[in-house]
């Protein structure tokens, strides 16, 4: 077999793009460079109706400004549920509780991060996915220090108030994961080419649900590679988020 004609970051981009498949005419909010490239790929191929902002206050479609989306409208859209965000996570646990606030004791943290931002409101109101560029036991932890994004165990405890909660998928540099297990614990869905389930288990700091059959993550099509390299990300910015 000849060596593959795609790079790891391109596999990750496609896996992130897949998060928005079937979402229809909702706001896709990718946080970070690789998710942004991924959302644009999704929109350029199988999810053409997605709404996306320029990160300032405009809705932009195929390079044309088509609408106004200041922060106030973003917040309204979050609470209306017509949005699917892909956030990062400094820590994430078995049920998808996510931390971007700080590491250590909240009163005097070892490391202050950006803050919980809209993670609580996002996760309780609309679909959420995660992109984690360095899959390791530092990030995939038994217990997060601050619950920003709400996980399935906490959502279950809320009852009907959490009826709009839903975590779709977690994409990392190693694998694609979701929460489609009986108690919504994190499950391994597919490993990227060259990665084994054992590699993923080893890099995860909690017991992972590993089905008998784990697929290999879908690799980019020729057309997806062309779009990524010639149109969407000719500078290869998505690659820079890996291997840090």
């Amino acid at each position, binding site marked *: 077999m000849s060596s593959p004609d795609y790079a790891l970051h391109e596999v990750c981009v496609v896996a992130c793009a897949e998060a928005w498949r079937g979402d229809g005419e909702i706001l896709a909010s990718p946080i970070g460079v690789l998710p942004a490239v991924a959302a644009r790929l999704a929109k350029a191929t199988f999810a053409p109706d997605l709404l996306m902002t320029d990160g*300032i*206050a*405009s809705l932009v479609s195929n390079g044309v400004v088509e609408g*106004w989306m*200041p*922060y*106030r409208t973003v*917040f309204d859209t*979050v*609470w209306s549920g017509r949005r699917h965000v892909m956030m990062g996570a400094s820590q994430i646990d078995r049920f998808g509780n996510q931390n971007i*606030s*700080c590491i250590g004791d*909240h*009163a*005097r*943290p*070892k*490391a*202050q*991060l*950006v*803050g*919980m*931002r*809209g*993670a*609580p*409101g996002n*996760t*309780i*109101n609309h679909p959420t996915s995660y992109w984690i560029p360095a899959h390791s036991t530092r990030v995939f932890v038994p217990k997060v220090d*601050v*619950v*920003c*994004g*709400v996980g399935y165990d*906490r*959502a279950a*405890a*809320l*009852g*009907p*108030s*959490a009826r*709009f*909660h839903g975590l779709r998928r977690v994409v990392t540099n190693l694998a694609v994961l979701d929460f489609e297990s009986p108690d919504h614990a994190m499950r391994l869905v597919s490993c990227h080419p060259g990665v084994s389930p054992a590699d993923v288990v080893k890099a995860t700091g909690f017991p992972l649900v590993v089905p008998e059959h784990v697929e290999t993550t879908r690799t980019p099509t020729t057309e997806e590679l062309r779009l990524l390299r010639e149109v969407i990300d000719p500078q290869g910015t998505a690659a820079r988020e890996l291997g840090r």
Partner: protein
Amino acid sequence: MADKRTTADAAVAQLADGMTIGIGGWGSRRKPMALVRALLRSPLKDLTVVSFAGPDLGMLCAAGKVRRAVFGFASLDSIPLEPYFRAARQAGAIEASEIDEGMLQWGLYAAALRLPFLPTRAGLGSDALALNPWLRTVRSPYDDREELVAMRALELDAAIVHVHRADVSGNAQILGPDAYFDDLFCMAAKRRIVSCERIVRTEELLARGPLQTLRIHRGMVDAVVEAPRGAGFTSCEPDYPRDEAAQKAYAASAQEPGGWDAFRATYLTETVTGGA
């Protein structure tokens, strides 16, 4: 109509120790930095700062003026983490009332409407509630009986915001793409201070932008300060972009011993030459 023109220092001299101050803008975008500079020059202390935070909160932390921060994040946008805020947090120097950014908006809106709270799902299940025992939940009185966060009104003693144009009585015009939550900050506050790039005659306002740009009217404003480049180094589009070099120098100063004192000296001097 009253002439509300004053200077940044005179406007800030009306404030007192221990006040809760709301700061407009977002991250490192259209922050009222001329007024923040005046706060830095003042003897004020023990402030509670409510902000979609950027260098405004960072500088006030660095200067030791902050007792408590109510925030959802602190970021310089092009530099993800606010260095002085980070240092203050890691030293345990400030009380951190960290909430979801939508909860922050709702708290301002509740205060603006003189309501004790507004309901929302944002915060449910997260540590935004566990970390903030001053926040409670409420049960819907209707058939759904749903439990919701009762986001408490964030009543402000004062609000400071920076806009593009204003007239002498405080009719203020935002020409940029996003008003952020500046009007809510003003409506939630007892004392409202607006700085602007340029004071113009009232009849000039509509020549510069459509009616919708007049987001803040004089009934929402107590003091008007003309402060050219008054948001710098944060962005004030379309008048000027963020001064990335200046922001980088600010962030770098946090890594050096004595860095804040050196930065502070330069930053406050620039104000004098800038005429604000």
